[in-house]
């Protein structure tokens, strides 16, 4: 328990996510699916959920992507509620969400069903329990494609078996600045985990935010996968805390200067691109968490990570903007938030 409290407090683990990939038995996978069959997937899963007895049902709503505007879709992807692959297939895709977007059930992405549960902090077990319950609820009325040997059958062979991807989003500034991050990246990949940037496959570690997830889905049970991810996360958090202690011991004026300069830029800059902004937020966050900066609320910084994303800020500003104009609006949003 102490570990959970500790890591939640230090803010190193931003979110925990569990995702199940499921397909309906006897139907081609989404890529080969006709419009009417795609429609049937959406209708069948939604009605299966409505018929089920789980508590969450009353809060679930269905959104067809073709009825949504592009900006709204992109903003949802920036909040990690839907994936970019789902947007690619927007004409046939849908998503079922609860009010606070903790539960997201993507339909006709790469697989018929991509069920996701997301929590703040290190809450993998809790997220898994929710996902498991919702999975059972869908299965009350739908037969999944399943094989005794290969487990849950998925479109891509890298997801087969449990169909489960468990992931944590980590903020690792001290490991990055002390140049220990590459060590961590190598070690993590050696124990069957993948580590990536903020927006998944192929994205860079913007703002020192990394995503760690399980690589293997076949041959291990869900509990085994989650337990090893928790163990790995715990180790990384440990290392990040050690790196911070090391930085604190030196208590150099350079560090203090760096985090306060970053705060100064965020408070007064007139243009900020996403990359610069995320890196500055990361430094200020580190400053706050290390007790150097006292006058900034960490919650505001967390909100800003999403608010300054391109599509989200255009939604806030209620208009579409060119990249340069976005940088101006971004700086304004940040200034006002930190006033």
């Amino acid at each position: 328990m102490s570990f959970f409290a500790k890591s939640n407090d230090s803010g190193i683990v931003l979110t925990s996510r569990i995702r199940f990939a499921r397909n309906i038995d006897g139907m081609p996978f989404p890529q080969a699916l006709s419009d009417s069959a795609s429609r049937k997937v959406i209708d069948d899963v939604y009605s299966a959920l409505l018929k089920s007895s789980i508590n969450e049902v009353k809060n679930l709503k269905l959104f067809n992507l073709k009825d949504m505007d592009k900006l709204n879709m992109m903003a949802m992807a920036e909040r990690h509620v839907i994936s970019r692959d789902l947007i690619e297939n927007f004409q046939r895709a849908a998503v079922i969400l609860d009010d606070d977007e903790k539960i997201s059930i993507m339909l006709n992405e790469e697989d018929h069903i991509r069920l996701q549960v997301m929590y703040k902090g290190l809450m993998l077990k809790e997220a898994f329990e929710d996902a498991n319950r919702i999975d059972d609820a869908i299965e009350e009325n739908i037969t999944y494609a399943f094989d005794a040997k290969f487990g849950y059958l998925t479109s891509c062979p890298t997801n087969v078996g449990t169909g489960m991807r468990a992931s944590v989003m980590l903020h690792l500034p001290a490991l990055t600045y002390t140049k220990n991050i590459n060590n961590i990246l190598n070690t993590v990949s050696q124990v069957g985990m993948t580590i990536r940037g903020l927006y998944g496959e192929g994205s860079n570690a913007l703002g020192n935010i990394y995503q760690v997830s399980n690589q293997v889905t076949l041959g291990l049970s869900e509990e085994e996968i989650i337990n090893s991810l928790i163990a790995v996360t715990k180790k990384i958090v440990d290392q990040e805390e050690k790196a911070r202690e090391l930085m604190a011991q030196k208590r150099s004026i350079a560090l203090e200067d760096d985090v306060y300069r970053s705060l100064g830029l965020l408070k007064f800059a007139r243009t900020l691109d996403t990359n610069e902004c995320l890196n500055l937020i990361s430094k200020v966050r580190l400053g706050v968490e290390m007790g150097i900066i006292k006058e900034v609320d960490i919650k505001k910084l967390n909100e800003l990570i999403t608010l300054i994303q391109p599509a989200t800020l255009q939604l806030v500003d209620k208009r579409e903007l060119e990249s340069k104009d976005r940088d101006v609006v971004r700086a304004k949003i940040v200034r006002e938030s930190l006033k």
Partner: protein
Amino acid sequence: MLCQKCNQKEANVHITKIINGVKTELHLCDECARESNEANISIPVTFGIPMSFQNILEGFMEMMGGIPQQLVEEISCPTCHMTFENFKQTGRFGCGNCYSAFNDNILPLMKRIHGNIQHTGKVPKRSGGILKVKRDIEKLKNELKMAVANEEYEKAARLRDEIKRLEERLNNKQDKE
């Protein structure tokens, strides 16, 4: 040595290329090197470079060997008609039945990706129920063989009845689905 391009400044960038065993050397000055693509050796350092799945998959497939290429190409899924060749190119299955259609050919790939080929996680209640009955029947059939071989006829009769009962249950279950 003077730059081979501008012939004016001192050459301080030296490039040696060996392509198909043929060695070529190039000596350039700073400025010409920067303009030249030849000297473009700055590889962007990012992690998680999305090496395309197809590349990796094809790599695995090539390493497998053993199966005559022509035969592999002819394999296709009876349900969605996806060919094995097609799967190799896209890295995606067409439907759940592709797994059993390609079974022998995808085992080495599965082993490579996951290090395992046997699911040990959650079993869905619905299709899992049928599965469990099937597994039980298999087990009893083996026991029956043993019993007959050991001339334990009383036990064999009991096992035979049990198998019959389970098979009836299985048929009922499948009819309901």
